[in-house]
């Protein structure tokens, strides 16, 4: 069942006419006849969880918004999509801009935001034009601007471009950046719901989350909540990449098995070039990497599914996370040490530098990984890496520290012998890859 991408291939859907013909803006008509509180209630009932990565219940986030008399409130949409492996919001904004704008209008009304912003990563430089075109069309047709549908509700939407900083996907860094400052995350509390942009109450939501509000209003929160599995309601956009036969953006049902997603004809169609699956990072580069056996089945031997609960089954010991939906697949020819080094370089580059464990630690991790990758590591380096990541995790203002620590921890946890092989075979490791080794066979996993 498709709730977001149903009409993605309708000719001209990027423009108002075609979007309206498919039933577009019906949800705004319906929503503006309801009260803001009723809308928040619908979103609560839907069980929608934030699609940016953290999976926090959206309705609850909305209900935290402070409403002091005389102080404007703002909706800010996080379109800073920068988590390696993630490119789903780009797809939504590029091909279904009106769906996204429709979601923003409803959400703005529910939150009482008369001026809402889209904070989009600077590198998506051509997308603001598409969004601004959609905003202008919506305005020309009375869905935005003053006194929308005669309800007395005024709303303007502006697109604000960032300029290349992963950290601005963290909501308080995004707010700082929107204020024209460096993207340094703020210490919480106060949370944005109390003091956000310009110290006004602010809700920051991901693009996909906001788009999902449209089907929620159209079908009702309760109906939306019935779709999916357990606390994973609705559908999820996955951006699949790496060594897949057919990478791309897919809208998946939450009861899809990981195996079907990778190998199914309707989905990624298996590993490219007939290779074998070695490992996968299922939810964006920050979440733990899993070897093939633990990816397809949980440590208990049960089938793993593409939803919040199943992917995190086993905790970080034997599981991972759905995260942002950035599904990165590595085939048998890939080197886990090199891949981890590449991610460590990314986090080193993206650390804002405020907290020393992250500022220094990400650089140390990158340099040690580089040493190991280029055949100059020692066994003690592996333990040192482990020690550093452990001291970063939980010791920083924002989650970038955790995001940098987790990939290193998981790589060592599951692929320690590949690291050791690099160290024991400094010359051979420069000319060939470790390959699948025993990962092709199920490991004996001790479940605590």
């Amino acid at each position, binding site marked *: 069942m498709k709730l977001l991408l149903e009409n993605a291939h309708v000719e001209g859907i990027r423009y108002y006419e075609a979007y309206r013909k498919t039933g577009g803006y019906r949800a705004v008509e319906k929503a503006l006849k309801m009260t803001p509180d009723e809308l928040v209630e619908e979103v609560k009932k839907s069980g929608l969880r934030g699609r940016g990565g953290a999976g926090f219940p959206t309705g609850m986030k909305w209900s935290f918004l402070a409403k002091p008399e005389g102080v404007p409130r703002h909706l800010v949409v996080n379109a800073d999509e920068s988590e390696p492996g993630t490119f789903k919001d780009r797809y939504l904004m590029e091909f279904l801009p009106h769906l996204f704008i429709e979601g923003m209008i409803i959400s703005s009304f529910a939150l009482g935001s008369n001026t809402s912003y889209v904070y989009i990563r600077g590198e998506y430089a051509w997308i603001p034009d598409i969004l601004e075109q959609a905003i202008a069309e919506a305005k020309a047709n009375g869905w935005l601007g003053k006194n929308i549908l005669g309800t007395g509700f005024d709303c303007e939407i502006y697109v604000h471009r960032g300029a290349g900083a992963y950290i601005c996907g963290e909501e308080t860094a995004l707010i700082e950046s929107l204020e024209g400052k460096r993207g340094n995350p703020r210490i919480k509390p106060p949370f944005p719901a109390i003091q956000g942009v310009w110290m006004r109450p602010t809700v920051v939501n991901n693009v996909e989350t906001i788009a999902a509000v449209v089907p929620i209003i159209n079908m009702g929160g309760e109906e939306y909540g019935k779709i999916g599995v357990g606390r994973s309601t609705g559908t999820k956009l996955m951006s699949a990449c790496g060594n897949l036969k057919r990478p791309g953006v897919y809208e998946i049902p939450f009861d899809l098995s990981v195996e079907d997603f990778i190998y199914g004809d309707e989905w990624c169609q298996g590993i490219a070039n007939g290779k074998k699956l070695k490992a996968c990072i299922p939810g964006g580069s920050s979440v733990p990497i899993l070897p093939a056996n633990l990816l397809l089945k949980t440590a208990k031997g049960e089938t793993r599914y593409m939803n919040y609960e199943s992917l995190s089954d086993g905790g970080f010991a034997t599981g991972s996370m759905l995260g942002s939906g950035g599904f990165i697949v590595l085939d048998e020819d890939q080197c886990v040490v090199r891949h981890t080094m590449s991610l460590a*370089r990314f986090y080193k580059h993206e650390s804002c530098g405020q907290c020393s464990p992250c500022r220094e630690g990400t650089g140390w991790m990158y340099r040690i990984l580089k040493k190991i990758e280029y055949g100059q590591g020692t066994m003690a380096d592996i333990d040192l890496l482990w020690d550093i990541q452990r001291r970063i995790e939980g010791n920083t203002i924002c989650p970038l520290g955790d995001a940098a620590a987790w990939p290193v921890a998981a790589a060592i946890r599951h692929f320690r012998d590949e690291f050791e092989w690099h160290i024991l075979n400094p010359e051979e490791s420069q000319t060939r890859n470790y390959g699948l080794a025993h990962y092709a066979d199920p490991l004996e996993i001790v479940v605590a």
Partner: protein
Amino acid sequence: MIQFSEEKLAKVKEIIARYPEGKHKSALIPVLHLAQEEFGGWLDVPVMDYVATLISIKPIEVYEVATFYSMFNMKPVGKYVLEVCQTGPCMVSGSDKIISHIKNKLGIDAGETTEDGLFTLKPAECLGACGYAPMMQLGKHFREHLTTEKVDAIIEELRAAAKN
């Protein structure tokens, strides 16, 4: 003389108006983008000072922001900046090969500019095109599913465009 055209000044005004009264500093990053496009692809100190006067903030407030964000170039760059993504998903799809091909072909290292001032190679971190890897950003747009042949064609295309 560092000075925006009337048209660009109107754009600056429009950008400032997007934010509440007194919150004009929010216009800084969008205006820096305009300035970088207009004044040679990088932000020299006089350019940043000019932006400071336009937004009525102190020059230091511009410097600290400009140096934080990776899209702002703090030194001169070539007419075309080839920003090749090198992060995980692009790496497993062959970005190393693309980067070394460009280095060999143009005779420059990462961060350098060719002698004719046409090309700068700027390896980048994840640009959000992981499913279409390897890729590079070229100005406003992405070039995706790169191969060494495609890179050759892009370089030829840009050389031809520079002559016109």
